[in-house]
């Protein structure tokens, strides 16, 4: 069917990724390119009947970012991890090797105060559960790693919203040490809207491994 109302100039794409779509009978308009990783979906409430949206239905995980850890680095700052697209995020970290057995201190943005938390940790050689609590610290202790690595998972609740961020952490190190595994919960005493986080080993350096950031689809 011929388009009679729109002219070539009025529907000319302005940028890479823009789409020319039908907006009414014999009419067309330009739909600007969406956010990276977003997909096109139908929405009868928009002018074009289409919109860009995060993939997956409510509750689905969408990979936001993958970051490889470099060689002998004293900290890793992951930027553009959080945005208004999702309320909550899950971060997985597979540590490869480290210069010494130590543990991770996690910070959000430039905040270096006001971290409160508690939880517990254990040693695989003992059934003893060690309680842990801390208040108004410069960072969050999120778990150990040994020289041959370890795995951590962090769940960030509302890091980019104007409310206090809560972080749930789980960790396991490949070594029989106290703190080999931990389950800890933190909150940050500020309503700063964060877009990045940093992991810093308490001592030594990190070499290799992968950090993945997933957004939890709101709806």
């Amino acid at each position: 069917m011929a388009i009679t109302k729109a002219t070539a100039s009025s529907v000319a794409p302005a940028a890479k990724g823009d789409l020319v779509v039908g907006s009414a009978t014999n009419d067309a308009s330009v739909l600007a390119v969406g956010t990276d990783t977003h997909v096109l979906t139908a929405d009868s409430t928009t002018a074009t009947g289409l919109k860009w949206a995060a993939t997956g239905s409510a509750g689905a995980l969408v990979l936001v970012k993958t970051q490889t850890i470099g060689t002998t680095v004293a900290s890793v700052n992951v930027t553009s991890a959080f945005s208004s697209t999702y309320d909550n995020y899950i971060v997985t970290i597979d540590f490869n090797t480290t210069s010494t057995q130590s543990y991770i201190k996690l910070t959000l943005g430039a905040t270096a105060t006001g971290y409160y938390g508690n939880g517990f940790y254990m040693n695989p050689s003992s059934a003893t559960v060690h309680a842990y609590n801390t208040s108004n610290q410069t960072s969050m202790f999120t778990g150990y790693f040994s020289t041959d690595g370890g795995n951590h998972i962090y769940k960030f609740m509302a890091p980019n919203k104007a409310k206090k961020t809560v972080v749930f952490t789980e960790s396991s190190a490949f070594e029989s040490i106290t703190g080999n595994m931990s389950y800890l919960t933190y909150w940050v005493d500020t309503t700063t809207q964060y877009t990045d986080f940093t992991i810093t080993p308490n001592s030594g350096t990190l070499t290799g491994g992968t950090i993945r950031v997933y957004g939890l689809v709101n709806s």
Partner: protein
Amino acid sequence: MKIQIDDQIIEANEEQIAHIEKIRLQPSIDDQIAAREATRKSALAKLVALGLTEDEIAAL
């Protein structure tokens, strides 16, 4: 000291080094663990001194 920002690995400047040192300066988790273990052992010793058996202590 090298730090990583996304894919960039750079030599940390004075401000960045000071920030990392501040993060690392908070009370050591190892010290906290040791302190808790010392407290536990001290309490255990007091219970033994009171005449409790291992089974009685375990049942507490």
